[in-house]
């Protein structure tokens, strides 16, 4: 029997506001334990929460950017449970009246087709603190509580179970991350935990309408782990069902070291969170004027930018997709393409060598030694025939290593392309004279030998000869 996976993702996004969601404490990462705390986020007796308006604004931005309906009336609720990293004994979250509902995210599949993944809801909530266990600090049998993160604002973004494969899940999260980065609402750093994702995974026989029993998979802090964990989970459930067993509803943790998901049964029993409306925060209304103002402040989003790149720069869909996947890359491209005669050449370089450097050096394109202006200048040198494509590679590496301008590199290293036919002719003559056999086989109709001659000439000129000129001269002389 053939099975189909049904996947929904719950994504937690840490918002990069200056202060926490319900108090004035800093959200800065990396402060000494409990440095960023006050009576409110410590859960002292008598304290009250006050909503940080910047959190609401960012939540509305995300809602609008994903096509959600912004709730006219919304409220906070308490989610009650005991844990030492939860100072009040409840988390202030949103239960049945989230700020935004019913949006969608469009992904592009491998075959180029578009697929729409529905968004169930977007809601605001506070993060918990974290526990540090004694083996690393203080008494080995004790645990220590750091509440710096307690009260840091989060958005929970819940997708519909519209995702059908690990690949789609990865694309969904990539697109969501791109949107969040474009909105500049979060730094989306998965390793630091500012973008976290849980997956609800189930399988069903292909063609069946009803959903199978789902497992919730947690602890995937990279795109690769998300994909691997879902792939593992689909395979695991398929095996369970194929062997006549039944999938049970449970929470499973992804263990990246062993590349498996492990049941948390016993550790996290079904909680009764006893949600009820947060009496300290009255029901509130986001006015139409407010929503309109936030909408007007939205930047150009990935899909719009992609369409504009296709139109304005005459780029293929694929190029536009890759370039706009990250706002930083898109900005880099646009800067480099300013006034460029052929944006497609710029696009090739950005998608190729620039993205390679970004990945190798784990940095933003804007931080590379190769500035967009330098890249543009290098392409101009190619257009002018000053350097060949092959030399450009050398120039690029030199720019990437030293940050020197391309013209300076060309001048310093004497990389200017040889277009002077007489010096090339001299080299060609030498090579023809030294290789009578090859000349004979060319004349016998073996055209491929021409390539061999070109290679010889290029080697002799250390790559500086213009390949076009070399070709021309070789054809002339060999046919003579």
């Amino acid at each position, binding site marked *: 029997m053939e099975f189909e996976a049904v996947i929904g993702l719950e994504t937690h996004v840490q918002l990069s506001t200056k202060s926490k969601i319900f108090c004035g404490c800093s959200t800065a990462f990396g402060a000494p334990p409990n440095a960023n705390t006050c009576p409110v986020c410590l*859960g002292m007796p*008598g304290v009250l929460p006050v909503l940080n308006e910047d959190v609401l604004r960012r939540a509305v931005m995300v809602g609008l950017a994903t096509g959600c309906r912004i709730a006219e009336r919304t409220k906070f609720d308490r989610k009650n449970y005991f844990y030492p990293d939860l100072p009040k004994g409840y988390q202030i979250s949103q239960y049945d009246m989230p700020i935004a509902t019913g949006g969608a995210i469009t992904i592009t599949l491998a075959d180029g087709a578009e697929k729409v993944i529905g968004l169930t809801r977007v809601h605001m909530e506070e993060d918990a603190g974290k526990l540090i266990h004694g083996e690393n600090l203080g008494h080995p049998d004790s645990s220590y509580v750091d509440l710096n993160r307690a009260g840091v604002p989060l958005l929970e973004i819940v997708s519909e179970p519209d995702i059908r494969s690990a690949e789609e899940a990865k694309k969904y999260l990539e697109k969501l991350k791109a949107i969040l980065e474009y909105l500049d609402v979060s730094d989306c750093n998965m390793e630091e935990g500012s973008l976290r994702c849980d997956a609800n995974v189930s399988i069903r026989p292909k063609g069946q309408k009803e959903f199978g029993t789902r497992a919730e998979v947690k602890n995937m802090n990279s795109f690769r782990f998300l994909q691997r964990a879902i792939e593992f989970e689909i395979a695991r459930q398929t095996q369970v069902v194929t062997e006549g067993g039944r999938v049970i509803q449970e929470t499973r943790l992804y263990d990246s070291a062993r590349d498996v998901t492990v049941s948390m049964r016993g550790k996290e029993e079904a909680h009764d969170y006893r949600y009820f409306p947060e009496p300290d925060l009255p029901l509130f209304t986001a006015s139409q004027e407010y929503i309109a103002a936030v909408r007007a402040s939205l930047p150009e989003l990935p899909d719009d930018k992609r369409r504009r790149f296709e139109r304005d720069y005459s780029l293929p869909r694929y190029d536009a997709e890759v370039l706009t996947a990250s706002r930083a890359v898109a900005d880099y491209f646009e800067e480099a393409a300013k006034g460029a005669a052929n944006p497609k050449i710029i696009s090739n370089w950005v998608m190729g060598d620039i993205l390679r450097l970004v990945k190798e050096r784990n940095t933003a394109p804007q931080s590379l030694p190769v500035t967009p202006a330098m890249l543009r200048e290098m392409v101009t040198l190619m257009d002018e025939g000053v350097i060949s494509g092959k030399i450009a590679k050398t120039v690029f590496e030199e720019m990437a290593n030293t940050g020197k301008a391309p013209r300076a590199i060309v001048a310093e290293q004497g990389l200017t392309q040889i277009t002077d036919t007489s010096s090339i002719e001299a080299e060609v003559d030498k090579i023809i004279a030294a290789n009578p056999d090859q000349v004979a086989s060319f004349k016998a109709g073996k055209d491929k030998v021409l390539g061999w001659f070109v290679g010889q000439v290029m080697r002799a000129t250390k790559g500086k000869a213009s390949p076009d000129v070399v070709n021309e001269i070789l054809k002339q002389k060999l046919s003579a």
Partner: protein
Amino acid sequence: MSGLCALTIHELADKLDKGEVTSEQATRAYLNRIASLDKSINSYITVDAGGAMTQAREADSRRAKGERGPLLGVPLGIKDVLLAKGLRSTCGSKMLENFIAPYDAFVTGKLRAAGAVTLGKTNMDEFAMGSSTENSHFGSTKNPWDLTRIPGGSSGGSAAAVAADLCAGSLGSDTGGSIRQPASLCGVVGLKPTYGRVSRFGLVAFASSLDQVGPMTKDTRDAAILLNAIAGYDAADSTSANQPVPDYTQGLEDGVKGLRVGLPKEYFGAGMDDDTAAALRATVDMLKDAGALVSEVSLPNTRYAVPTYYVLAPAEASSNLARYDGVKYGFRSPDGGGLLEMYQRTRHDGFGAEVKRRIMLGTYVLSSGYYDAYYLKAQKVRTLIRGDFLAAFKQVDVLLSPTSPTPAFPLGEKVDDPLTMYLCDIMTLNVNLAGIPGISVPCGHSAGGLPIGAQFMGPFFSEGMLLRAARVIERASGAMARKPSL
């Protein structure tokens, strides 16, 4: 100098203004009186003699520089549910027995700025849960009128301290009657303001949607003065009302001529003791004599108040009290064990029986499968109860009822019978459920010489009118003239 302690806030401020007495003298007089009398009354959990004397000297030096103010140098008692920075704030609980407040409540900050002197923190039912102050980890407070009787609760310490002249005035908190009922039983004035009138920041939460801070004083003018000091918008409390604060002493003497007073018939039924009924009849006559128009009205959903309250208040309390887990501050069971065991032992040993009863009740009504039948239904009934009041206030300006169905009862009488105890607040709970203001003013005494209070209830933000109506009864009944013999 015991006469000094009997002064009202405005009388004392007058003497301070005239230089007839200093705050240092007044504060010392109160501290001496507390030292000699409070062993038998137990109205204070913490007396801050050193801090009070320092504040008194500061107030005197501010006055010497020409500063004036109705509370400058006036010694007050603060209910232990309100945080005052640097002072122990126990909430009447073992859980917070050694908890030193790290910040000032909005209201204590206001009093500090006004130059009031904090004598100490007054006794209360643990976490404000109770109607007799018998649920305090620090022992019961006794009613100054009869030391074998309860002072009411949960602000019993504040009420007793005012009645026994152990402070010039005090602050209490009221979730279901905790200011008004003890005020009635101790013969003092107690005002629960409109929900949102006074910031709850720094008031240790019992039931967040019902809690309000308010004054407990020797007369209505003092209540107006204290309310002037503590009322107002606070950005740190999202439920705080951004409404202008009038001067509540203005118009206090304007009387009730033409005021439409409603008597809700549901409040005058069975269960009310004869002396209380008689005192209320006399109160109605006083109002009529003063020109008020008295008529009967109906609040048909009154009978649902107790069950509604005892679903909603415990529900919120079960969540509000979750923070007392032994992890961060307060009591932690020394018996060790793992995390779950630490939680269980800490909360088992740190909370008293009534608090645990309400946490369990509240946890139950919020539980999956019961939420709709209890919590949600109670919220709907709460809306109906509020609707009753809004409808009544279309017919009349103010409502009158007894504050408590009976005068003070003997210590121990109801402490093991929670259901009977819960009925003590039957006259006052509705006001909190509706969010409206209510005031209790002494209107007479029982045959046995115990104080009886009358309660006025008015529309949102009608505190000025309530004070004015209460002032008429205060003057006409002369009940304030009688003092407990100590």
